[in-house]
């Protein structure tokens, strides 16, 4: 199984090679990979249905408890089959849809990478493995939404999708860490099977909120739903695959996966039901407002995702069985519908459904497929969608928390969806013929194969639902439930409330379909309100990021060096002052034993420095520095450091010479700061001075330890054969310091030479060379 996932990445990497080998037919060749996987997963079905769980573990980063372990249970198998089967069709479809596209290679690489990432995600057992693949699906999705990268809208949408899902990913990380810590394991299976009741854990709520945030962003739940319609900037195969059948269901998958260990609490039920129901309604409502066929489908996907969430929230056995059923049904018809939409777009050159009409004679197969799939979407018998919808109503009736709201929204959404289904299935194919940007033809076989098969499956499962029930759905539902359940699906449940609701919604939906254009016109009045939706929130957030960051940069990185220094010095003052004066008692030593000439010398040193600080001419300042230097040297000599004194004298002389050589080129001092600034600076500088004085006195007063220099003094002659201990330290005890030091000096010299001799060449007056890199700010 690891092999399956990893080989996919390898295949993705080698896609360019396949392109070279197989040319135009490469899509079909590559499609063989998911097809083979699908077959393999089908082969696992009997075992899974027996209740067995296939478990494959591979160490990855054991130090972090991360393993690359995969598990196949019912839920995983259901998803794996969806991914591989639809993946096969999508690859074939893409071969037609993107025929001759110059970026087909890149498309294949990314979509294969996505496919295996998605596979990894649903098969993962380790929390981190799950996370890794989760993020990979976000990234690949980003690349696919931005497939037409020259288009600014595509780039923006891609970024939007990435941000929302990535933000969710961060929440996921936090949530998973909380989960792993609380559950005492990094394996989903172990957590689900473990004895620890996470619902009682102190951190249950934060954990839940993090995980829900992740799931909601990924699965486009309200209020994060806005990115999904925008993701329709991707090529249609991508929309069909990622943004309806698979990736957006990752969040749902996560919730389903965690249902056994986290579900059922008040918070879970409340949040999921309400958010799911609201999302469901939002999706359905917004779908009606649009005329772009892909957007309509996208919103209806939002609606479906909301439904799934809602079902998980309701959480009864029936609701969970419905969940898996609805999941399968939706994937089948929505995949088909997207591909149909792609065909329409591809063949007519427009996505605006109001611009199409009367296409049935030109594209009969497409029309049939569209109608079947749309019927399933509408929940019309005898399609699989009908079963799912019936069960959904049933589950909605079972909802205990906010039951009336859930039911109401379910009902409204249902009839809105029916209208959408009708619009999609009927408007393009019936009615009077419209002229489209491109003259429509029937699509090639490669593009028809996928939708046709999926539509056929919708029909087949509708007629023989037992196939699905017996198949993977039972196992999947058991996995979601955390205990074995049996799924029995049937087309006919007898006359009951759901059936009545179905009939009413069909009627209402048809009504809405008929008056769609007028309703849309009415709805247009709501546009200003819509503009303030969550997407506006996203835009505002992005805007404020820019504003705040620019503001912050202006404040902090303001370019004024004295401000930088001031901040640093103030930090130093604050920290030193706090520790020295406030947090601990001040213990300074103060024994005065001075000689007149010493005080004079020290005073000269200080006065030299102070005069240098206030001198009005730079050369007076330099002379003062010289005075200070000589005084320091004398201080060293008076306190037993002849070597230091000599060095200081020489260095001082050379420094003065350098200053003189350089100042020749520089202008006079100008008084640039205001008196107020000077007062402030005196205060700041003075504080530093006071603190330093106190520090010295404190450190000097500590006589607790024998300095290591005693050893040096004792061994200078016997071991190091030198009588000048300072020199012995420099060239023997601590010769490494000295070695470094001469390199410092050498480096400074190289720097000076380079600075003075290596001049930027005079730029020729070329337009390109005139751009100054630093001119932007």
């Amino acid at each position, binding site marked *: 199984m690891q092999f399956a996932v990893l080989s996919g990445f390898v295949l993705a990497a080698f896609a360019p090679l396949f392109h070279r080998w197989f040319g135009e037919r490469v899509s079909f060749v590559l499609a063989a990979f998911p097809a083979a996987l699908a077959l393999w997963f089908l082969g696992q079905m009997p075992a899974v249905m027996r209740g067995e769980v296939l478990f494959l573990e591979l160490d990855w980063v054991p130090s972090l408890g991360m393993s690359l372990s995969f598990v196949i249970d019912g839920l995983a198998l259901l998803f794996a089959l969806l991914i591989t089967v639809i993946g096969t069709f999508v690859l074939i479809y893409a071969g037609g849809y993107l025929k001759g596209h110059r970026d087909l290679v890149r498309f294949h690489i990314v979509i294969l990478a996505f496919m295996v990432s998605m596979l990894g995600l649903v098969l993962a057992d380790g929390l981190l493995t799950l996370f890794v693949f989760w993020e990979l699906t976000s990234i690949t999705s980003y690349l696919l939404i931005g497939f037409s990268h020259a288009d600014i809208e595509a780039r923006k949408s891609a970024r939007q999708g990435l941000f929302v899902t990535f933000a969710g990913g961060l929440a996921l990380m936090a949530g998973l860490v909380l989960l792993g810590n609380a559950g005492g394991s990094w394996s989903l299976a172990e957590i689900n099977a473990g004895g620890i009741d996470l619902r009682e854990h102190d951190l249950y709520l934060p954990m839940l909120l993090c995980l829900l945030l992740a799931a909601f962003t990924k699965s486009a739940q309200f209020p994060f739903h806005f990115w999904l319609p925008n993701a329709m900037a991707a090529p249609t195969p991508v929309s069909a695959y990622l943004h309806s059948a698979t990736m957006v269901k990752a969040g749902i998958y996560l919730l389903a996966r965690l249902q056994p260990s986290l579900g059922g609490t008040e918070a879970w039920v409340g949040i999921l039901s309400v958010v799911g129901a609201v999302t469901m309604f939002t999706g359905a409502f917004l779908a009606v407002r649009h005329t772009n066929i892909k957007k309509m489908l996208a919103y209806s996907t939002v609606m479906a995702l909301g439904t799934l969430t809602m079902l998980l929230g309701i959480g009864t056995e029936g609701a969970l069985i419905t969940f898996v059923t609805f999941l399968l049904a939706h994937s089948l018809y929505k995949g088909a519908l997207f591909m149909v939409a792609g065909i329409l777009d591809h063949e007519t050159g427009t996505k605006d459904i109001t611009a199409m009409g009367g296409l049935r004679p030109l594209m009969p197969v497409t029309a049939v497929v569209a109608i079947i799939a749309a019927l399933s979407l509408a929940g019309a018998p005898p399609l699989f969608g009908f079963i799912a919808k019936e069960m959904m109503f049933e589950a909605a009736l079972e909802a205990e928390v906010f039951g009336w709201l859930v039911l109401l929204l379910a009902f409204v959404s249902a009839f809105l969806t029916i209208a959408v289904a009708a619009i999609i299935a009927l408007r393009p194919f019936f009615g009077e013929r419209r002229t489209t940007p491109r003259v429509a033809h029937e699509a090639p076989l490669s593009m028809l194969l996928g939708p046709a098969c999926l539509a056929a499956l919708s029909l087949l499962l509708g007629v023989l639902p037992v196939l699905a029930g017996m198949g993977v759905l039972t196992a999947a539902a058991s996995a979601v439930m955390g205990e074995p359940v049996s799924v029995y699906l049937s087309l006919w449940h007898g006359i009951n409330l759901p059936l009545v609701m179905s009939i009413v919604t069909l009627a209402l939906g048809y009504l809405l379909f008929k008056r769609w254009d007028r309703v849309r016109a009415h709805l247009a009045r709501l546009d200003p309100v819509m503009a303030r939706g969550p997407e506006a929130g996203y835009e505002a957030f992005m805007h404020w990021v820019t504003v705040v960051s620019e503001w912050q*940069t*202006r404040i902090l990185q*303001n*370019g*004024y060096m*004295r401000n930088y*220094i001031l901040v640093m*010095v103030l930090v130093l003052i604050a920290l030193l002052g706090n520790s020295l004066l406030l947090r601990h008692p001040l213990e300074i030593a*103060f*024994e005065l034993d001075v000689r007149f000439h010493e*005080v004079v010398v*020290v005073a000269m040193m200080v006065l030299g*420095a102070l005069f240098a*600080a206030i001198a009005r001419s730079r050369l007076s300042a330099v002379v003062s*520095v010289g005075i200070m230097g000589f005084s*320091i040297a004398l201080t060293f000599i008076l*306190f*037993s*450091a*002849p*070597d*230091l004194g000599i060095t*200081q004298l020489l*260095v001082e002389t*050379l*420094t003065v010479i350098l200053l003189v050589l*350089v*100042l020749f*080129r520089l*202008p006079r*001092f*100008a008084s*640039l700061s205001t008196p107020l600034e000077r007062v402030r*600076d005196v205060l700041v*500088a003075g504080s*530093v*001075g006071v603190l*330093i*004085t*106190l520090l*010295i006195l404190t450190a*000097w007063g500590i006589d607790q330890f024998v300095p290591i*220099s005693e050893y040096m*003094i004792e061994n*200078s*002659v016997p071991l190091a054969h030198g*009588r*000048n*201990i300072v020199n012995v330290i*420099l060239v023997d005890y601590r010769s490494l*310091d000295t070695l470094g*030091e001469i390199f*410092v*000096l050498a480096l*400074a*010299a190289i720097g*000076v030479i380079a*600075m*003075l001799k290596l001049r930027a060449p005079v730029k020729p007056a070329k337009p390109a060379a005139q751009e100054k890199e630093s001119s932007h*700010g």
Partner: protein
Amino acid sequence: MEPVMAVAVGLLYAAAIFLMLRRSIVKLVIGLILLSNAANLLIFTTAGMTRGAPPLIPEGLSAPLGPVADPLPQAVVLTAIVIAFGVLAFAVVLIRRAYEIVKADDLDKMKETDT
């Protein structure tokens, strides 16, 4: 002597910081010179100051006759002096070149690389 020195070193730091807060690059570099001298003196002072007993061993002896000044801070300061000289020489030439290129002694006019 250390208390006097401590105050003096404090004043040196203060003068240095004050200079570094000016807008003129020349003052800035003079401030840096003061600052590195101040740090050297801090090391020298904190370790304790001894009169008239340099860490030299008279010829023929294997150890000094009496207590001598601590040689280690001296060696450290010596190293620091030379390092500071190299660094400051670089800084001094840098302000010269900067002035040549930017044509101003005013640090406030050198803020194009930020923001």
